């Protein structure tokens, strides 16, 4: 149900809200617009004052420099690898655990789920130092493994999947069990196919989190062959402050995939964010 607080005005009449919303929307898009324009501007024009609003010609040299003079392509590959393994592992492990905690009776279940929920309260900053020390003993530091391992599973993912499985009617599974299927078959053939919306939500969260993660790679990875794209970008920021066309090209490469993904999965995205807020 949508609450229309404006007026009884019919839909066709132009609304005064446009006068408010159009400038606000423009303001929100402006940074992206600048980013795209700057990424295809000739480098010299970006340092002029006042800078031209529209570049005099389209120049891709920022992208060329990015891909030829830095390891950006490698970093992009690393990021894709981290995000992919995060998503796959999250989907598998969190749906299994969520189902187990929601539906199976076994010793230690209550303690287990309670402890997992309690960890949501622990700020990640508290964990950075000991995790770094732990990973350095496991010889994971400076390797891509350091970026991947913390993203294999999460308390939030388990909680999200558990909530979803609790909301499914039990009768669906009971008929399967009566027909002689075991738990694994019930889970994989009956329950999981119904969980697509929850899995999509989990995938979106995991993608956003793992793709954009900066602090942890910053701490755990100093070897630029194992950099993620975000870390590489942040590093540019320190070392190549004035090469704006290159920096913006990097920004476009790091952000565009997520923007496109957002535009495609917008509905699920918004539902996901609402869920994160109300149930997180």
């Amino acid at each position, binding site marked *: 149900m949508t609450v229309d607080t*404006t007026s009884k005005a019919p839909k066709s009449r132009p609304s005064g809200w446009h006068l408010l919303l159009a400038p606000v929307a*423009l303001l929100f898009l402006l940074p992206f617009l600048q980013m795209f324009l700057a990424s295809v501007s000739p480098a010299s024009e970006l340092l002029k004052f006042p800078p031209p609003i529209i570049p005099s010609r389209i120049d891709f040299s920022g992208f060329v420099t990015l891909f030829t003079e830095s390891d950006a392509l490698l970093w992009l590959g690393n990021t894709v690898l981290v995000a992919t393994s995060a998503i796959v592992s999250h989907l598998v492990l969190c749906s299994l655990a969520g189902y187990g905690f929601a539906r199976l009776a076994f010793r230690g279940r209550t303690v287990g789920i309670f402890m997992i929920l309690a960890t949501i309260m622990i700020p990640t900053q508290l964990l950075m*130092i000991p995790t770094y020390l732990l990973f350095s003993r496991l010889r994971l530091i400076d390797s891509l493994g350091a970026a991947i391992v913390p993203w294999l599973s999460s308390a939030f993912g388990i909680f999200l999947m558990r909530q979803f499985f609790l909301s499914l009617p039990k009768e669906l599974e009971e008929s399967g069990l009566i027909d002689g299927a075991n738990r694994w078959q019930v889970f994989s053939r009956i329950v999981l196919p119904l969980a697509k919306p929850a899995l999509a939500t989990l995938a979106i969260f995991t993608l956003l989190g793992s793709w954009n993660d900066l602090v942890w790679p910053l701490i755990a990875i100093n070897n630029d062959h194992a950099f993620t794209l975000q870390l590489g970008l942040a590093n540019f920021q320190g070392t190549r402050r004035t090469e704006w066309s290159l920096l913006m090209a990097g920004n476009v490469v790091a952000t565009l995939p997520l923007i496109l993904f957002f535009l495609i999965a917008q509905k699920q995205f918004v539902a996901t964010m609402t869920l994160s807020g109300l149930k997180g």
Partner: protein
Amino acid sequence: MTTTELPPAATAPPRADQPDRPGRRHDRRRAALTGWLFVGPATLIVLGLSIFPAGWAFVLSLEKWNGFSAPEFVGGKNYSRLVTDAEFADAVLHTIVYTAMFVPMSVLAGLFLAVALNRRIRFIGIYRTAIFVPFVASAAATGILSTYLFNPQYGLVNNVLQRLGLPAQGWLEDPAQAMVVIAIMSLWGQAAFTTVIYLAALQDVPGELIEAARVDGAGSWQTFWRVIWPQLRPVTVFVTIWQTIGAIQLFDLVYTTTRGGPLNATRTIVYFLWDKAFRSLDFGYGSAAAYVLFAITLLTTIGVVVYSRRKNMEAF
């Protein structure tokens, strides 16, 4: 929230008057095995990467250790050192300043945008997309964009100011303004979050309430304050807590814009602890700062929850 899904027979404890059926113990062991096969891997990872490190962090916070030489137990010394450390006090102050700017701004902006976006007019989809899409931008990308847009020499913001006949500002290079810029850019990236929560809450306001207010002759302003706003209070408490926790933990955007500068004006608590642990290699001191951060977060959350309970605005 209920967790018991199984038929009572399976969960009821074995009673003395019931003969223990043969194979029952076997069944239970089998159930435990199945259960742990399902939940084990994820549970192991989550607990192994949180409970264990959290405990270790506490031990570390009682030690003086640089990662190489033997750790030295110093008890509460790291904590007492924090209390008198002017640098830490500054970091706390900067964090408070940022939180005080960002949280009200983001809650108000979310409320305002949600009300504005919650109607059926043309292009509403485009407006919503425009406000939601910055949410996907990373801190690194947002940081780089910020330094470009707010560049004092050729940035868009000063360009616009000059065209309007206003004086150019130093922005991220001015100690008094740097945190303001960071707050503005956080708002740009985060506005979608509070907006979406408020949008969902607005759609849960019963239509009859609004109808009734209309019939009683209330204007839209009155309807909003007297009817809709009271219904939004629990959500307001929730987003305030959520945004406050996020604000207290500010780091990424500081790192990718100012690196704590200019003149340390944007060094936050997390920046301080990162700097102590990973640059000065003072793991004990960094861990103590992390525990203080944890305590602040917890106290803030409890404070807001207690306050809202007293005011009858339960959010949880």
